[in-house]
């Protein structure tokens, strides 16, 4: 029977409840094992030598002294990771980022690595490696890197997406354009036009757990990798390809993960640890320091964005246009493209055009960060929308409601929307008591909307029913924030059994079919779809077994509330058979009972949120305080509402840090100056108020329970919502994120002076 993923309204028994997560006790007792909590017999300590230069040719690396140090078991350079990528440019970039080949492209770029019997020996060995560099001119700013005189980072890059193929290489890797209609004509019909330029600085995902792995390569060509990752199947593929292994010979186990937010979707240290283990013939544990996490992993793009929006007197937007420049680090990605797609996704527009330019800079390779690229675009657009509402004399919520996208709207990036939540989140905000609460002196209120696509992808689930009637659920999407609880709820719902009868685990790469990463807010969306499918397959077998036990036709057996029930007058004397009773007989009725599912979870419903916040600005110092914060977001269906709220609150908090404080600060020498939590300050408990949440449920038609991804959208509106609040409090439009005290003070003083 083919699986039908379409939404069917049903009454839920388990889904929507709030039980304790199955991995909870281990996490509050210190028993849960994260990346660095695992050890193997005979394991060595791996450490990485990193470039202190932002841009430099590697002329020579002499490892002989390090190799001679007692206790050193392996030293590797790029030579030990030969290029096996076969012309795959994206994989070559990953390889080059793991270990610089001919040039160091940023401060922190790996150039060599050692494995030694202990950390002290490994540290000493790094100091004995001699690297001869030829320092090259560098560029770290996105706008400067676009100038024609800027230092060229990669002379094989010719801008893609231009009408004419360029003759000269450039730091601009790609131009992407989206939209429809005629913006020139649209602006001609506008009574008011707002045009503004914005900048956002680079931020890090800031997961508290540094990257960590233990790699063990055997002489028979097989290997094991224990690692904190958002996608162990993808890590297996990448590592196997870079090391010239067959994927099935590399078994990757995902540890508990101490935060990722997109930052653990990319390999950095893992191929290096495997190469060290291969050379040393022993297991190697490699754990990044916090300094390395900041200098070499993450971060998101820095951006520079121009926005122009025009509207008629009645508040109808006639045209919207944006040019978005996103830094990518030294390797091509698709960050500007995504920003250009999301920028105007909240609105119903007849004339819209966005152009994205992706720009290489001498900073770490940009990694995904929660709804990657969308928060910066939303900051620029939603700030301009607020300005335009002000010029029109309209309430900012009403102005957005008037122009909000609806079911049937052709989105600014192409597709036509199905049922969506932007209108309902705006209506909810309009009626929220927060919007009517009084403000004190120096306080301002802001609100903003946000959009994220959400993703589905390849997914595989095994559901095994034990002879005692308990159920184990093996999933392949890494649990980053409670998905084992939500997937257990879904399995309990479908099978009609109690949540406590189930145990969900994340299976390793040798125990389950391929799964895409936990990214794109897909964990619960896609694995719940596969879980429903697997449970339905198991139910089919359970019915067959019950029919066998009763000696009746399977067509006369239905599954109701965890029991096989015989239907029809002739079976009236047959009692129900519970899952447990059927499982107990399984050895005699055909063996183990299981349900499997392998599918591509299409139809991830798009997601919208609207946030409100109140900020107090000290006009003397420019310092800010978040007074109140409210998140309204569509979840489709909240499977475990507490963890949905957690996603809303967590995204908002990250957005608050990004908006007000967090930024990568580079010196003129191209070196990162704040590679630690003291100077790169993420919000602490005393910086924040409670974060109120309101979950809306507009069912996703492409999921049996109506589920949409919820993880990412919550970081999209905060930059803009806070910028609007600060601008209202300070009486001056803030155009540069983060709005740190010096920037706010400078803006206030410029306004006073002007």
């Amino acid at each position, binding site marked *: 029977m083919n699986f039908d993923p379409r939404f069917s309204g049903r009454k839920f028994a388990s889904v929507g409840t709030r039980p304790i997560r199955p991995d*909870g006790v281990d996490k509050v*007792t210190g028993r*849960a094992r994260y990346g660095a909590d695992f050890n193997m017999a005979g394991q060595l300590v791996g450490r990485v030598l990193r470039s202190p230069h932002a841009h430099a040719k590697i002329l020579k690396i002499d490892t002989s002294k390090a190799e001679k140090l007692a206790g050193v078991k392996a030293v590797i350079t790029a030579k030990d990771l030969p290029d096996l990528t076969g012309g795959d440019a994206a994989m070559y970039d990953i390889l080059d980022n793991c270990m610089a080949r001919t040039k160091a492209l940023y401060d922190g770029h790996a150039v060599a690595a050692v494995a030694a019997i202990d*950390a002290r020996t490994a540290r000493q060995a790094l100091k004995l490696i001699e690297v001869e560099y030829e320092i090259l001119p560098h560029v770290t700013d996105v706008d400067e890197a676009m100038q024609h005189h800027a230092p060229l980072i990669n002379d094989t890059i010719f801008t893609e997406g231009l009408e004419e193929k360029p003759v000269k290489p450039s730091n601009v890797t790609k131009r992407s354009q989206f939209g429809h209609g005629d913006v020139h004509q649209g602006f001609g019909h506008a009574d008011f036009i707002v045009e503004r330029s914005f900048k956002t600085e680079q931020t890090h995902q800031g997961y508290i757990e540094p990257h960590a792995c233990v790699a063990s390569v055997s002489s028979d060509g097989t290997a094991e990798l224990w690692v904190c990752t958002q996608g162990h199947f993808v890590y297996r593929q990448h590592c196997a390809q870079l090391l010239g292994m067959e994927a099935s010979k590399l078994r990757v186990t995902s540890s508990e993960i101490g935060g990722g937010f997109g930052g653990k979707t990319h390999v950095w240290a893992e191929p290096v640890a495997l190469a060290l283990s291969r050379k040393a013939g022993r297991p190697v544990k490699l754990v990044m320091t916090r300094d390395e996490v900041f200098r070499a992993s993450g971060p998101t793009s820095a951006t520079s964005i121009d926005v122009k929006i025009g509207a008629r007197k009645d508040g109808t937007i006639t045209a919207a246009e944006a040019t978005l420049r996103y830094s990518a680090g030294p390797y091509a990605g698709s960050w500007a493209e995504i920003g250009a797609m999301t920028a105007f996704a909240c609105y119903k527009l007849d004339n819209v055009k966005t152009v994205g330019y992706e720009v290489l800079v001498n900073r770490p390779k940009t990694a995904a960060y929660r709804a990657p690229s969308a928060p910066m675009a939303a900051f620029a657009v939603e700030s301009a929308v607020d300005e335009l509402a002000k010029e029109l004399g309209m309430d900012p919520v009403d102005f957005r409601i008037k122009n909000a996208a609806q079911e049937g709207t052709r989105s600014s990036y192409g597709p036509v929307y199905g049922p969506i939540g932007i209108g309902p989140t705006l209506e909810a905000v309009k009626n929220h008591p927060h919007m009517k609460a009084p403000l004190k002196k120096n306080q301002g209120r802001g609100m903003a909307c946000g959009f994220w696509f959400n993703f589905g992808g390849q997914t595989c689930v095994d559901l095994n029913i034990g002879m005692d009637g308990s159920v184990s659920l093996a999933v392949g999407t890494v649990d980053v924030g409670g998905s084992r609880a939500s997937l257990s709820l879904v399995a309990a719902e479908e099978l009609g059994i109690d949540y406590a009868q189930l145990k969900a685990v994340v299976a390793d790469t040798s125990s389950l079919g391929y799964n895409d990463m936990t990214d794109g807010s897909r964990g619960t969306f896609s694995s719940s779809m596969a879980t429903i499918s697997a449970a339905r397959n198991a139910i089919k077998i359970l019915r067959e077994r019950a029919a066998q036990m009763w000696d009746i036709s399977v067509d006369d057996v239905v599954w109701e509330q965890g029991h096989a029930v015989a239907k029809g007058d002739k079976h009236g004397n047959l009692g129900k058979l519970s899952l447990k009773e059927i499982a107990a007989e399984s050895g005699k009725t055909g063996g183990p009972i299981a349900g499997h599912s392998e599918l591509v979870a299409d139809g991830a419903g798009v997601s919208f949120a609207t946030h409100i916040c109140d900020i107090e600005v000290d006009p003397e110092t420019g310092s800010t305080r978040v007074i109140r914060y409210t998140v309204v977001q569509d979840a489709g269906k909240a499977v475990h509402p507490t963890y949905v709220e957690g996603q809303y609150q967590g995204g908002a908090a990250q957005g608050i840090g990004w908006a007000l404080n967090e930024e990568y600060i580079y010196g003129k020498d191209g070196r990162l100056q704040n590679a630690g*939590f003291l100077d790169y300050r993420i919000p602490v*408990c005393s910086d924040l108020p409670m974060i109120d949440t309101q979950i809306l449920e507009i069912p996703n038609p492409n999921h049996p329970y109506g589920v949409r991804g919820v993880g990412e959208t919550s970081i999209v509106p905060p930059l803009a919502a806070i910028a609007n609040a600060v601008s209202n409090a300070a009486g001056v439009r803030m155009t540069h994120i983060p709005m740190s005290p010096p920037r706010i003070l400078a803006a206030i003083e410029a306004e006073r002076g002007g």
Partner: protein
Amino acid sequence: MAGIAVSTTINGDNIEYLCQPDETLLDVLRDRLGLTGAKEGCGTGDCGACSIILDNRLVCSCLVLGAEAEGRRIETVEGMAHGDQLHTLQQKFLEHAALQCGICTPGFLIAAKDLLAKNPDPTEEEIRFGLAGNLCRCTGYDKIVRAVQDAAHVMKGA
């Protein structure tokens, strides 16, 4: 290099170990004694993931040397539950979903235990400042604060 012999008390047990002079207490706990509940998030005392209680004082174990533990009394997250009976804070963290990834949780539990030992009836603001040395990137702190408030309420009644 010869190690330094240290005799200390950890979660009520007498423990002896050898450590190097430059080895942190966090490394000793994790790498020598297998107590991996305390985590290294930064190694510079900025994140609080390695929080322990050392002679009734909340410290970052990454900023304490292993050799300094001689004759001291150490409490770690592994010592919070009694057998299979969770500490009220542990139970409340579970009930309130005060953790998502959970990497910061041991540090928060220890910091909250220390806070409630010194101030059994803290205001929200006192909780927020009391836990300001511990970083959490997942939760936005809302559910952590609520869990601590609830635990304080229950513990006061007990």
